[in-house]
């Protein structure tokens, strides 16, 4: 009675919309990445665009910066969220509002966080005033390498709550008698963490990672609004490159960078998902 056709009808609006607005554009991008010229003079050039782009300095900088952002930001946010989730497990049970407090930076709109960063980190901002009061020289927070750390800090502040909640949800499902029997057997905290907590948390860790990556890409919005179209070298991200190529209507480089970005994401996910599945294989 739950006929096949009703399933197809139900998912039709979403799938059709996705096809039109996400999949078809993506296929177009794929085609663009292999061709050159525009309008009537499109011709197939194979991998020539890819070769040219990899040797492009701006692209290398942008790609490297984005990878650096995720290579630094993702482990930091996962470790931070995991630590906080572990420590706060009992507290959140007692104070229901605590989880909502964790989510509060996430709901702060982009325009708001940009204003905040301006307030805190600009030359006449709060942080510099504090430093002045303490007699230390004011620092240029938004220039140079510290800009990168400000961005990371912003990403952490905004999104750690999301990961905390996901990890907390996983932690709660672990039955507490496992911990109690481990205590009876004299297990140390480290052993308990390694042998009880970690094996059952892989699924939650995977989800926290997925959403942290999605949120990491959204962090570009703040960087864009703070730094403008041509920000300093340290925070010139892949999406800046995409944006600027968009402005100059350089379809080829735009498409190639999108495809390369997507390939990196897919490889990462494929590997991690396979890893998680293997770890979770013993559970039905």
């Amino acid at each position, binding site marked *: 009675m*739950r006929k*096949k056709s*009703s*399933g197809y009808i*139900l*998912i*039709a*609006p*979403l799938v059709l*919309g*996705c096809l039109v*607005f*996400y*999949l*078809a*554009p*993506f296929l177009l*991008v794929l085609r*663009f990445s292999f061709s050159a010229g525009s309008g009537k003079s499109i011709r197939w050039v194979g991998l020539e665009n890819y070769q040219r782009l990899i040797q492009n300095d701006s692209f290398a900088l942008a790609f490297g910066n984005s990878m650096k952002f995720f290579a630094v930001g993702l482990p930091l946010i996962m470790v931070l969220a995991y630590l*906080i989730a572990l*420590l*706060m497990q*009992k*507290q959140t049970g007692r104070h*229901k509002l605590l*989880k*909502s*407090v*964790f*989510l*509060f*930076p996430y*709901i*702060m*709109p*982009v*325009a*708001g966080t940009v*204003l*905040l960063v301006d*307030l805190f980190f600009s030359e006449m901002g*709060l942080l510099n005033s504090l430093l002045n009061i303490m007699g230390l020289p004011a620092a240029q927070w938004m220039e140079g390498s510290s800009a990168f750390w400000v961005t990371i800090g912003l990403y952490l*502040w905004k999104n750690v*709550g999301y990961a905390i*909640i996901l990890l907390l*949800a996983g932690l709660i499902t672990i039955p507490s008698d496992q911990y109690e029997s481990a*205590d009876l057997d004299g297990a140390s905290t480290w052993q308990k963490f390694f042998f009880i907590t970690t094996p059952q948390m892989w*699924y939650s860790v995977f989800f926290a990672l997925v959403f942290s990556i999605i949120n990491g*890409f959204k962090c*570009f*919005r703040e960087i864009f*609004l703070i730094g403008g179209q041509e920000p300093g070298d340290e925070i010139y991200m892949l*999406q800046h490159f*995409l*944006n600027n190529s*968009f402005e100059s209507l350089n*379809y080829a480089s735009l498409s190639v960078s999108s495809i390369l*970005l*997507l390939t990196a994401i*897919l490889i990462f996910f494929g590997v991690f998902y396979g890893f998680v599945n293997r770890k979770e294989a013993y559970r039905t």
Partner: protein
Amino acid sequence: MTESRVFRGVSGAFAALLSVIFLAPFCYVLLSSFWTGNGVNFMPYYDVFWAQSQYMLRFWRSLGLCLCVGLGQLFVSVLAGFGFAKCRFPGRDVIFFGLMILMVLPVQVTLVPNYIMMGQLGLLDSYLALILPLIFAPLGAFILRQSFASIPENIIDAAMLDGCGIPTIILKIAIPMNVSGLVCAFLLSFLDAWNMVEQPIAYLRNFNYYPLSVALAYVPPADVPIHLVCCILVVLPCFLLFAFFNQELVEGITLAEVK
């Protein structure tokens, strides 16, 4: 496991510290919006909310835009979420996995082709260009599918025996049982729309149409107090929604990972 008094004290203090870190910036903005060096001053509020109508105009426009997105996505996601959760058809898991991949894509990847397509459809420089792609974002369907999957099969079977068609099942059974999932999906898509930056810059040519999220950053009012009040204005809808629905939001996010 039993925890020592020390641990409880330390973790409590840590929780308080975290709360301060997470809430402090917002409190600072709130306070300084009406507290200048010389005392309490509500003039900026009066300016933004009453005297200079440009801010409120943009605010109502942005609000309408985001409500359209939120409701539209809710409608599409409820249908799709139920379809993926409760109907069996070949290719279901493959399609769902494909949607998950699409969910991760950053906006820029599809920006250019969307721009070309909107140009051909004549939708550039109108709000439809902003609304339509966001309505079909897979995130809502993802959350709702997990949420609908938890409906016990026997309830649906009983309903079908009583002669309910699928629309009735969705309306009378699925939706009332999963209000928190629906609220969470609506909230997340509203937040996404309220925060959108790349799409307005790409698709809209007329600066007057820019929603609040972008307009504020492009033309920051020179006045610091007005700037701060605008910040409050931008936060206000999100804050109100959050204040009323934070439980549902937390539940919905948690649901997303239930196996």
